[in-house]
């Protein structure tokens, strides 16, 4: 074959131009590359409301060691199996703590803290880990590639990875192998108009009243009143992640 710089040059130019154009637009309105952006719904009267910031106040003085009402409720609501191995997902767990210097003990439910500055959202390469307009931090399992970087980044060990194929999922809580997941603040209940999460409801129903759920941005809500009156802290407040979950009695 003869050395024909004219034809080669043309082919090279055509290839480069096509590649460049494809990176921008394949067809009207269809882009090859999407850049993850914070999503806001078209109509704020339904779905995630940006004026709301969902949060929780947990009074650990009302948490009994050995009580797992919140954990059980979460498992039932979300279709989670009782964990037996270290590969089983846990969206909420009871942590028994004992201060080393004072010996003071407490029993603390820990779940995704729904930070305002979530490190898991920062590190997710595809934008699957995201913060909704109303402050709930979620995993979009349609985009999650299962890289587990968010699990490395979370300071609260809030996230779990699904290590096995699943069956029998709840219709409101789709979850599956190869994706990362964590507490959703029962987002499916909130979107359906219910007022509280399964764990908070179970705790209240059992008469402990340790968990209060509500809108932190609404000064008239019960949670806002309580955090104004009672001293509460955030876990690892030094990291300045501004979690939506606050703890009293720690």
């Amino acid at each position, binding site marked *: 074959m003869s050395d024909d710089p004219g034809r080669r040059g043309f082919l090279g130019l055509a290839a480069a131009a096509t590649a460049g154009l494809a990176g921008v637009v394949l067809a009207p309105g269809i882009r090859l590359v999407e850049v993850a952006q914070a*999503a*806001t*719904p*078209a109509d704020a009267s*339904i*779905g*995630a409301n940006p004026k709301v910031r969902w949060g929780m106040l947990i009074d650990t003085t009302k948490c009994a060691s050995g009580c797992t009402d919140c954990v059980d409720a979460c498992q039932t609501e979300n*279709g*989670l*199996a009782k964990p037996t191995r270290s590969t089983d997902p846990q969206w909420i767990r009871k942590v028994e703590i004992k201060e080393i210097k004072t010996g003071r003990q407490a029993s603390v439910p820990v779940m995704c803290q729904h930070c305002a500055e979530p490190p898991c959202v920062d590190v997710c390469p595809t934008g699957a880990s*995201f913060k*909704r*307009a*109303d402050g709930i931090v*979620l995993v*979009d*399992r*349609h985009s999650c590639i299962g890289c587990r970087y968010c699990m490395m980044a979370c300071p609260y060990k809030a996230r779990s990875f699904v290590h096995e*194929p*699943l*069956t*029998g*999922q*709840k*219709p*409101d809580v*789709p*979850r*599956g*192998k*190869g*994706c990362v997941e964590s507490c959703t603040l029962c*987002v*499916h209940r*909130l*979107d*359906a108009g219910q007022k509280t999460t399964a764990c908070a409801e179970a705790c209240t129903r059992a008469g402990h009243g340790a968990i209060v759920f509500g809108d932190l941005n609404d000064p008239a809500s019960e949670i806002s009143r309580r955090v104004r009156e009672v001293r509460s802290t955030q876990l690892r407040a030094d990291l300045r992640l501004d979690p939506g979950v606050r703890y009293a009695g720690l």
Partner: protein
Amino acid sequence: MRHAGLILAVLALVAAVTPWSASRADTAKRGLLPAIEPAAKGERCVEDTATMRRNHMRFLEHQRDDTVHGGIRGAKHSLKGCVDCHASKTTGSVAAAKTDFCVACHSFAAVKVDCFGCHATKPAAALATTSGGKP
């Protein structure tokens, strides 16, 4: 070209067979279309059949963003809605048996359906009456 004769012969054979095999695919009588169980509930689908056949994946793709990011549930194109109507009367699912709604068409078209690795295949009401799925 060295093998011009052979190549032309193969092309001629393909050209001869193609209209014949294409005509054979038209009639359902010959059993070459998927056997889909019709929906158990409801009178009609949210869109007409031809539109759905071509675009249901696009509707679902758009709806899932509205649901996950926007928190809008129970909309016209929600997957849960599809499952509610299209769950088989016998298996109660859209993806259990070969004749169930989603699997029937998808295995015919040889397109892997990824949804039910995560999404429930049975309507919520049916699951509530049974002893709840083992995750």
